[in-house]
């Protein structure tokens, strides 16, 4: 067997393709797409005989490096500012990975091409790898990093935290609703092909610059599997394109998937890379520069644009708008500022920005200091408990934002916020594209066409709703974000581990109650709501009240 060529072996395993003779498999997952049995080939040409030993070898390298990191005491030079954000990232990412594994059988049923099922099955195995190897990395951090709080209750935190819920779109979106929308367009065509570049390549690069070479070890190993998944997506996309009836759905799904990925991934990874690093070399790429290179040039121009000739309608406007959001409207900075505003509702410590950081931001994003500098100075001023409240309850020229019903990131670019009454409820959206996603795309009809398999946006999508009227101390206790002394918060707005400098439930008890913006919105009269929208749209940048001059 060892002498057989891969091509021959791959050709042989095609004989396994199954055409049911007596019973058709149960079709659990529906799609509104239709597929002719186009003769698309399995792009992977991977057989398990070579796959398993290859993956084992990759594992050996990863675990060898892990062992080396511990023996070499990597944690003596890890930046706490960086590793704290990993408490969020590594709580989120194992679920999207395992969800990708779960999504593959949805494609077996939706894509009637047995040859592609081989590649999808291998992707399923890859994704089990990714989820558990990442869960293991987090375990290693918990055991060896100075502050295990936030790692040790990681999945409870992730499941109950609003940031976790935002991240869950990058998981539930893969496995729910129309099988092709979820497992192909959202997962493989957009999330994996476009955004894993920033997730699994750019971010590990930043980790290394912050003394953590384990994250690159694990995630570059993960990324080496992603190219297979990208090929899976491409083959399915070409099959879908061969059927005219699919083009309207492809246009819809590409718009939804692109915009949602931009909103979610750019918010999180942009923040980690820009605000989680201590590497302020002026010639290191900013997130905006990375995005321009890897997403705009490599994905949009090199991958998507050539598909136009096959009839794919590309959301040029949304891609340009995403860049506009990142470059001109400060999307990443607004998100980082919001994360820091709400530090107390999370489970990691957020370091303040220093003069060196200010200088770097001003160099990379001219005008940054005028917008955000003063707020970050206030953040530092209010970081140690000293008779004042946490920054969210202090007057620092920041209006607490409403949440976007669709992407669940707050409506931070205030001028773009729109409201709509959908399913009998007034909802705020961060952008018209998110309103369209909820009100138009995720519906059983689309532009007059029945789409009975399309999913729905459900759940308690505004986190504050659950705690409307609650005292902050009770909120934090209810979520479980408290350390083992029963009173010190897991989260802190600084990196000082001196217990005297750390916030406790007693400090929270004195703060005003939590109020749900959405509950309040739905209590407004029409005229009050119109006035609210006008005021909101006039706010910002940096969350400043309407009419504020500095």
């Amino acid at each position, binding site marked *: *067997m060892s002498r*057989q060529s891969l091509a021959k072996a791959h050709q042989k*395993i095609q004989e*396994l393709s*199954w055409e*049911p*003779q*007596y019973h058709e*498999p*149960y079709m*659990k997952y529906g799609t509104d797409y239709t597929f002719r049995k186009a003769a698309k080939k399995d792009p992977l040409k991977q*057989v*398990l*005989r070579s796959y*398993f030993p290859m*993956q084992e070898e990759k594992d050996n390298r990863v675990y060898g490096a892990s062992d080396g990191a511990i023996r070499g005491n990597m944690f*003596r030079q*890890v930046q*706490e500012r960086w590793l704290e954000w990993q408490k969020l990232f590594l709580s989120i990412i194992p679920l999207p990975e*395992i969800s990708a594994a*779960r999504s*593959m*059988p*949805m494609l077996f049923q939706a894509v009637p091409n047995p040859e592609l099922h081989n590649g999808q*099955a291998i992707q399923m195995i890859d994704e*089990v*790898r990714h*989820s558990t190897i990442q*869960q*293991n990395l987090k*375990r290693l951090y*918990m055991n*060896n*990093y*100075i*502050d295990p709080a936030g790692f040790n*209750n990681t999945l*409870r935190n992730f*499941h*109950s935290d609003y940031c976790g*819920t935002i991240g869950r*779109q990058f998981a*539930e*979106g893969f496995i*729910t*609703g129309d099988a092709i929308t979820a497992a192909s367009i959202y997962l493989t065509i957009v999330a994996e092909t476009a955004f894993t570049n920033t997730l699994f390549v750019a971010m590990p690069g930043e980790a290394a*610059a912050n003394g953590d070479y384990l994250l690159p070890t694990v995630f570059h190993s993960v990324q080496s599997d992603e190219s297979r998944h990208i090929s899976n997506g491409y083959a399915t996309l070409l099959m879908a394109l061969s059927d005219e009836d699919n083009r309207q759905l492809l246009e819809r799904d590409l718009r939804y998937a692109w915009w949602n990925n931009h909103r979610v991934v750019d918010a999180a990874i942009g923040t980690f890379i820009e605000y989680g690093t201590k590497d302020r070399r002026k010639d290191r790429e900013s997130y905006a520069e990375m995005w321009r290179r890897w997403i705009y040039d490599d994905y949009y121009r090199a991958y998507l644009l050539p598909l136009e000739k096959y009839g794919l309608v590309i959301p040029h406007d949304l891609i340009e708008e995403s860049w506009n959001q990142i470059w001109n409207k400060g999307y990443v900075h607004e998100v980082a500022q919001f994360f820091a505003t709400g530090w107390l509702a999370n489970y990691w410590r957020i370091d303040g920005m220093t003069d060196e950081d200010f200088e770097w931001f001003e160099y990379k994003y001219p005008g940054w200091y005028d917008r955000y500098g003063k707020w970050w100075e206030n953040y530092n001023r209010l970081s140690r408990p000293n008779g004042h409240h946490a920054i969210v309850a202090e007057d620092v020229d920041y209006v607490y934002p409403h949440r976007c019903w669709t992407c669940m990131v707050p409506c931070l670019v205030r001028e773009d916020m729109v409201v709509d009454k959908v399913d009998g409820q007034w909802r705020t959206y961060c952008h018209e594209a998110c309103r369209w996603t909820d009100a138009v795309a995720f519906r059983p009809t689309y532009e007059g066409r029945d789409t*009975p398999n399309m999913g*729905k*946006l*459900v*759940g*308690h999508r505004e986190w504050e709703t*659950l705690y409307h009227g*609650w005292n902050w101390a009770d909120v934090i206790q*209810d*979520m479980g974000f408290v*350390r083992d*002394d029963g*009173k010190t918060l897991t989260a802190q707005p600084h990196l000082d581990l001196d217990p005297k400098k750390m916030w406790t439930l007693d400090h929270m008890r004195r703060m005003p109650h939590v109020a749900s913006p959405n509950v309040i919105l739905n209590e407004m009269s029409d005229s009050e709501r119109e006035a609210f929208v006008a005021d909101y749209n006039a706010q910002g940048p940096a969350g400043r009240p309407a009419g504020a001059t500095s």
Partner: protein
Amino acid sequence: MTTTENTARSVPKPTFTDAEAGAKEFPDSGPSARRYNYFKPAKRKQTHYEDVTVEVQPDPRHYLTQGWIYGFADGSRGYPLNWTKLKAWGVDDPEPERGPGSGGKPVQDWPAHGWHEFRDPNEEWELTMFRYNANVERQIGQNVENARNNKAFQQWTQNWVRFVERHVGAWMHIEHIFGLYIFAACNRSGPTNMHNTAMAVNSEHKIRFAQDLALYNLTLTEEIDGFDGAAHLEAWNNDAEWQGVRKVAEALTAVDDDWGEMIFGTNIVFEPLLGELFRSNLVQQSAPGNGDYVTPTVMGAGEYDFAQRDLRWTQACMGLLTQDREFADHNKQIMQGWLSHWVPQCLEAARQLQPLWSQPDAKPPRFEDSLDRAKNRFAGILNDLGLDAPKELSQ
């Protein structure tokens, strides 16, 4: 020769941060804080396997306070517990009702229901599954390579060559169908990450074994003059002996929306009554007498997958349910119904296979003896699960 001027390269500057465990004392700095604390381990100490699998798949009855955020068109969301008729204790208790001002209502006494008690006794996660399957692939490769070098295939009788090309070859299709359309298919459906990961790993075994058989078939085509590498397709598609097995295998993929029945029907019923009957009681027993010491090593790898690993997790999964503190009777009743449905079909398919027992020159044990052995093994599995052997088994 000119020299190139070295320009200063821009590199990050390592900094001593002293961010290692134990560097300072503060709340949560002690050793007891260095473990995942959001679940109860099955035994006194949590295992590595538990750490990397438990709670990765959320549950609104645990900590998923905002609930699932995407739904299917019919309103179902996440991993509904009613995607099987089997039940575990606590599932009929209402989900926490959350709304304005309700708070998160996280689980107070983990777990909220019995499904979360399942642990894969094989403790499979990525490290174990790659080590195991890579080892199997290496061993099979070496066995076959050794046989090739020793011209071992030349000892085979013509009848045995025909038997292997048709019937050993035909078995690859069963493994492939189960791998993709039962186990991989169900890895989207189980109620916890432990169930779904065990199903994904079971799927890997099946897909790998199917490919092992296909590539073994390719080797034999290259090594044995006149070996027809396409005969397995003819047998699978047209031989009367195979149509019964094929019909049951396909029927298992067509089970109406119940992952529990698919897994039970496959690993508890089909595999002992048909899988082991064919693999162990026919092929393994026949091969040595027909001069073949290689096929049993390939077939044996798949047999080990089932007998030592896939059956093991399935018994642990189903055994919890037949002993469930609230739904044991309900589950046994459901499973007995499944036995009544699948056992006759499997026995009928087994009898259709009977002519294969007379094809090799050196005969294996009699078909009836082989079937009795498979039935006894099957009855033992049912006994372990606390289930009654269905009356059809004595037919």
